[in-house]
């Protein structure tokens, strides 16, 4: 699998910061993969997303060493839906079309891209609604659609369900496998290890700016279920979710 985005030996320091936010990070994400980025606060997961999508150091400042290869287009979704809206569009349709419109394409292709993105997210029924009056869950789907309208090769998500209720969160994470199947590489940083475990094809764990683990979903040892298994004497690797725990329970 060729990587859609590859970081090799990347170190990043924020402007004016004493220490490095990331050091010696090597990470590749291929089309169709859903990579979950786990780590405690300060581990560098958000920074890694900004570096992977090229927003750091370009917009954020700071110094980057190492190599970043990302020949295609990136999209990023943050956790607060309302701060990602342009605030200038009176309908959801316009909001989703904002990205393609920025490319200067003609009106027809712009509206077609927007329509496709809304269909993928199942929000065509919201096309004429005012974004200001939507619920958090609906709004976050509008945001994802707006990002997808540009057909990015890599979709980065930073704790995308933080502000959503469980139904909204389930729906959002439930979208990711379909997106990956469509060829997008998905990189999601989240403290919601339970939901990440359900959809991730691979897990990368960060601590103090370093990658400390990179492998299958059972590396998500921070889940509640894993903690229960550990406390109940289960030998590692600890099952990250209920189905895998039930499979490990003997007669």
């Amino acid at each position, binding site marked *: 699998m060729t990587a859609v985005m590859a970081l090799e030996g990347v170190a990043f320091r924020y402007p004016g910061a004493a220490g490095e936010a990331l050091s010696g990070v090597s990470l590749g994400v291929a089309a169709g993969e859903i990579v979950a980025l786990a780590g405690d606060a300060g581990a560098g997961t958000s920074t890694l997303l*900004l570096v992977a*999508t090229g*927003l750091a150091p370009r*917009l*954020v400042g700071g110094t980057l060493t190492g190599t970043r290869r990302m020949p295609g287009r*990136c*999209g*990023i*979704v*943050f956790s*607060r839906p309302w*701060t*990602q809206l*342009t*605030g*200038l*569009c*009176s309908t959801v349709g*316009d909001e989703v*079309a*904002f*990205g*393609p*419109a*920025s*490319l*200067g*394409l*003609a*009106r027809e292709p*712009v*509206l077609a891209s927007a329509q496709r993105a809304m269909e993928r997210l199942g929000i065509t029924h919201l096309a004429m609604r005012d974004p200001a009056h939507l619920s958090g869950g609906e709004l976050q789907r509008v*945001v994802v659609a*707006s*990002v997808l309208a*540009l057909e990015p090769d890599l979709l980065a998500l930073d704790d995308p369900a933080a502000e959503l209720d469980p139904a909204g969160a389930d729906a959002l994470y439930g979208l990711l496998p379909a997106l990956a199947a469509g060829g997008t590489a998905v990189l999601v940083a989240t403290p919601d290890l339970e939901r990440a475990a359900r959809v991730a094809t691979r897990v990368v764990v960060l601590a103090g700016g370093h990658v400390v683990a990179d492998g299958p979903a059972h590396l998500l040892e921070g889940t509640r279920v894993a903690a229960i298994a550990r406390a109940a004497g289960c030998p590692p690797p600890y099952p990250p979710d209920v189905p895998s725990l039930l499979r490990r329970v003997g007669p």
Partner: protein
Amino acid sequence: MIGYLAGRSPLHRAHPYTTLALAAAVLLVAFALTRPLEVWLLVAVAAVLAASGGGEVLRSSVRAALLLSLPIWALLFVLYGLLGAEPRLALGVVSLSAPGMARALVLGGRITAIVLGFLTALGTTSPHRLVEAMTASGVPFGRTFLLASTLTVLPRMRDRARQILEAQQCRGLRIGGSPLARLGALGPLALPLILGALAEVDEQVLALDARGAGGGARRTALEAPPDSGPQRLVRWALLVAVIVAYGWKFWRMRG
């Protein structure tokens, strides 16, 4: 009170450049007029403009204009009317300066006309339509975004301020009932309001950039507000009116 109010009046439906041109014309002409009668005629014109924006726009513009103007009128009255030069008029127990009152009326009227004009324009121009108009004219996104954000900043700040005041009350801060006391409570809020807004802008800039906002290409306007021959004519006519007003002002100064 201050900000866009949805509606279907002729001003709402006009091209945003036309509405803004009207407000700008009121501003410029206000400074060209030097006599109380002329200035207050302009105030009447501005009021008619506000009325053509619909009942809600009229009410809110007039209310806000009065709120802003009354203190200034009072100040001007004292400075020029009471303390002004000869000749003086006697009005019952009070003696007012004639030229002083004229000056106060001119200055006060100017401010009122200008404020009315701009509030009307603000009330009838949706930020969205303005952005689309500017995009269609080829203005780069950065500038349109800046302008549109300025237009929406007040309601957002107001919401935020209210939330922070509630949180402070829930932690024991007693706020006096009167609106003035509430305004006083906002003082120490200025910094957190701005910082909070900046933190949001930080994230918004990243998000929008990732959606191509910063790109060099000329954005496609999806719904450019319709412009028309008559409207363009009106804008040119306004420009001519402003030039004539200044011409007249300088001609009068010479003669």
